[in-house]
């Protein structure tokens, strides 16, 4: 049944029990975004380990549908500890996957996040799934810019 492709156990679990919820004191990146059409909101804090150029900590607070909130929760789990470079790649892969454009090898790298593969069958929900990813992306870009 196609609905189960979208609403996988893992997703519902993260929706009901989101991980890494909260804020970070003195984050390197703070972002607030809102999808004006569904009202979904996400506050995202990131702390960067400058020396190793990696994501030291990442936390979110949000309000929204199961897809957007589970996506945020699972993203924090995936990206914590990743290098900025890796993070960038994973973001791209995730965005491709939910549009049905990623290769199996690429999807492999997303681990649990492959649970979101089914979103590609629900084009209206792609925005829900990618909201947090676009937010991280623009946050990391700002860091990038600032360092140049």
């Amino acid at each position, binding site marked *: 049944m196609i*609905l189960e492709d979208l609403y996988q156990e893992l997703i519902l679990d993260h929706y009901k029990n989101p991980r890494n919820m909260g804020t970070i004191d003195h984050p390197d990146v703070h972002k607030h975004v809102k999808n004006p059409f*569904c*009202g979904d909101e996400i506050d995202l804090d990131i702390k960067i380990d400058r020396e190793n150029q990696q994501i030291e900590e990442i936390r979110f607070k949000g*309000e*929204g*549908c199961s897809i957007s909130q589970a996506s945020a929760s699972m993203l924090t789990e995936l990206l914590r500890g990743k290098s900025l470079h890796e993070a960038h790649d994973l973001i791209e892969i995730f965005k491709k996957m939910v549009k049905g454009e990623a290769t199996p090898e690429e999807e492999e790298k997303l681990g649990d996040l492959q649970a979101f593969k089914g979103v590609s069958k629900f084009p*209206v929900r792609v925005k829900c799934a990618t909201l947090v990813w676009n937010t991280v992306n623009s946050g990391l870009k700002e860091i990038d810019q600032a360092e140049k």
Partner: protein
Amino acid sequence: MSLSNRTETDKVTGAAVCNEPEIDWKALRADFPILSRKMNGHPLTYLDNAATTQKPQVVIDAIKEYFETYNANIHRGAYKLSEQATYAYEEAHRKTAQFIHAPGIENIIFTRNCTEAINLVAYSYGRSQLKTGDHILLSQMEHHSNLVPWQLLAEEKNLILDFLPILPDGNLDLAQLPHLLSGRTKLVSVTHASNVLGSINPVREIIRQAHNAGAVVLLDGAQSVPHFPVDVQDLDCDFMAFSGHKMLAPTGSGALYGKQELLEKMPPFLAGGDMISDVTFQRSTWHNLPWKFEAGTPAIAEGIGFGAAIDYLNRIGMENIWRHEQHLTEYAMKQLTEWPDVKIYGPKGNRTGVISFAIDDIHPHDIATFLDQYGVAIRAGHHCAQPLMKLLKVVATARASFYFYNSNEDIDRFIDALDKTRKFFKK
């Protein structure tokens, strides 16, 4: 159409009519081609009528006929095609005037939608008649289209916006009205029926008090005119804005009603071809009403389609439509109120067939996606009423909204799919 012995005239009579000819509501559905579409393997159950309604074949055919047999620009043509188009387009204004009981076509300006109609008043009336320090009174349940134009105007002209509050039951707090109206209140703009709560507002009383205070009143009729008989002269509103596309007419259709003396004194809004009388390089004078406010080539096919939609509604009769929708609403409410995890916003009685609701622990967006899989189209979101959402302490609601072509079976499918959704997320 499946109406036994109804004529176009025997409508809008007030209370329940005896010997009401039976309307075969089920058979009417065949007039709407889209309603036989399958959606994800299920019959399409279209319950987003507050956003836009479906179109009957007669409306689609009216557009087709115009484009295939007499498409031409209006007013300016000296040939038969243009004359035919002009007649049909003007006739649509006449039908619209009659539909809301306006005196004549001078009072009816066609617009793209309800939003443009409200903006027309904000720009033309607002900019010419309101002055620094004047107040505009709105309500807390306005659609963005009846809020943001006034914000822009208020910012430009230093006006003050006041808001008639809503009570916890979803009705306006009419007791506050006398305190909010003062000699500085120059314009009151409120919705006739809410697109979120379904509330039908006591506009007659609001208009009376507003007029006593010297304010003109605009009614947002987007959710009233399509659903029950509206008589603008009886209500005595000064302006009434509504959408054609929410009452069977094509997209691109809407209308503004205005009292003639107000429309006469207002400067033009959009300027250009067809709305002028005399033009020199430096100065121009204006054409008669309503054309003074319809600049450029109008949405001719859309206007003609609007006329065809009104003919169709008249054949059924707005009183009948209203009764049928009330029945559907009660039927749906009865089932929804049985579930303890479902919260319904808005008043219990005296309401339209717009039902906003929430289910514990299930986001409205997830409800909508779930229902869509069963062919049930509802809306999830802020319904262009973000400030109201904040008052309701939610970011979004789910909303089902009915029109007369909906059936008990539609509601059964809706309730059934909703029950599956609840069970899925509760498991």
